[in-house]
């Protein structure tokens, strides 16, 4: 991400999600991301940041950074980082859609939703941090 990117670092907690969302939303409005896409952007950020808050660290023990930059008309490039143990959320198995209600696992839908709503999602380990990058909106927008 280039130096023109805007960055915000906050404690990795569920309570920080709303602040991160406001931060990226303001950039999305300036970048003229279509307004009907903004709720989807909220959803993507919540799914990723809740995962970081729950799994990257012991509770109350680390921070997350969200960075974004305009990436062409109506588009944003977003990167979300944490300094927890190496963990690639994209390694998660896709949900098993063949199962009926009683057997349908309750977890695993968040990453699937994120993949459905963004473009070019990628994970990289960069020195001591996990970085998840993606374009928004996704190709279906």
């Amino acid at each position, binding site marked *: 991400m280039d130096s023109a990117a805007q960055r915000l670092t906050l404690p990795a907690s569920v309570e920080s*999600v709303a602040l991160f969302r406001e931060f990226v939303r303001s950039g999305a409005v300036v970048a003229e991301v279509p307004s009907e896409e903004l709720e989807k952007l909220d959803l993507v950020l919540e799914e990723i940041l*809740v995962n970081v808050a729950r799994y990257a660290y012991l509770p109350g023990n680390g921070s997350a950074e969200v960075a974004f930059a305009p990436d062409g008309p109506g588009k944003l490039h977003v990167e979300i980082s944490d300094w927890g143990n190496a963990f690639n959320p994209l390694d998660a198995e896709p*949900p098993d859609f063949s199962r009926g209600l009683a057997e*349908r696992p309750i977890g695993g*839908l968040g990453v699937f*939703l994120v993949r459905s709503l963004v473009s070019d999602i990628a994970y990289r380990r960069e020195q001591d941090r996990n970085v998840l990058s993606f374009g928004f909106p996704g190709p279906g927008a």
Partner: protein
Amino acid sequence: MNIETEELGKAVLVKVSGRMDAENSHEFEQACEQWVARGTKHLIADLDGLQYVSSMGLRSFLSVAQRLQSESGSLMLCGLHGLPRQVFELTRLIGLFQVFDTAQQALATL
């Protein structure tokens, strides 16, 4: 998120409005659980006023539905539209629920 409940004869209507996310989805589960604990078999979630639901909200819907099904009951959905409908469709949860346009249509099946 705001939750209102109303007894409708054979079912209880649970009207959910606003945003259901990681911070508050447990409130929906708790509201449903109170009725299930009192012996209610069928819940109808009216989602006409629901603007947003994340995977944590989906977990709550799934959890309540599984609990009711295990007791020969059901969680039916009505008024699903916009992004919440898209989220139910993308995750293919929509096929696991009985989905109606209105609460009256859901009630008529009981």
